[in-house]
């Protein structure tokens, strides 16, 4: 890993939050590779990493999700026992109910984050994911690695 060259964002884009957080529509983006078994395609173990994503509906039960992260460089135990460590959907709902955010987005996104060759992520699947959030009227996204 010492010789790996991290990909630098330059210039760094900036989008002001369009409305106060208390009225903003917020989506979660996790890189834990969560997917719905029997509904979504599992993530694949391919060279450079699987850059695809799954859209998870806001009413999904996080405990029904499978942790699809390919990487074995971390302990899968915590996220398997408690998906909130990387996909805190119940906490987002709690904050919406309390008026801390406006509302939870209709769909949230799940990537498999062990991507060593992120070209396709940046050029293809990332922009498609962003477009999905735009179509859903999302104001802000919180991105959580694992």
């Amino acid at each position, binding site marked *: 890993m010492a010789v790996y060259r*991290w*990909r*630098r*964002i*330059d210039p*760094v*884009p*900036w*989008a*002001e*939050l369009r409305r*106060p*957080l208390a009225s*903003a529509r*917020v989506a979660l*983006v996790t*890189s834990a590779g969560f997917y719905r078994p029997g509904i979504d395609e599992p993530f694949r173990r391919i060279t450079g*990493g699987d850059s695809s994503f799954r859209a998870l509906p806001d009413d999904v039960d996080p405990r029904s999700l499978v942790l699809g992260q390919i*990487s074995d460089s*971390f*302990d*899968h*135990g*915590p*996220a398997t*026992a*408690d998906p*909130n*460590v*990387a996909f*805190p959907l119940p*906490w*987002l709902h*709690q*904050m919406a109910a309390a008026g*801390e*955010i406006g509302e939870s987005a209709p769909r949230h996104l799940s*990537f498999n*984050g*062990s*991507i060593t060759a*992120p070209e396709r*992520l*940046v050029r293809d699947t*990332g*922009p498609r*994911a*962003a*477009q999905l*959030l*735009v179509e859903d009227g*999302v*104001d*802000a*996204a*919180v*991105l*959580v*690695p*694992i």
Partner: protein
Amino acid sequence: MCTQAVALLAGVMESRGIATACVALVKHVAEAVRPPRALAVPFPFGEALGPAGDAATQLRVLRAALRLLESPGPPPVLEDA
């Protein structure tokens, strides 16, 4: 790798008008990749928002990440949880 992936996604989303807040498990990766807004957390791989079962910590970190959305900038914004 996960920190780089979400950081790069944050950049893509931000360039399309969506404000983003990124949790970073590895601070030096966030410094290198430069997502627009990032919160560096002190937790090990596998539990970015805090230990399994620790709802209070997870909520605190999520709130701290959301607060970054109201940062005046300029980017990149990188704070410690």
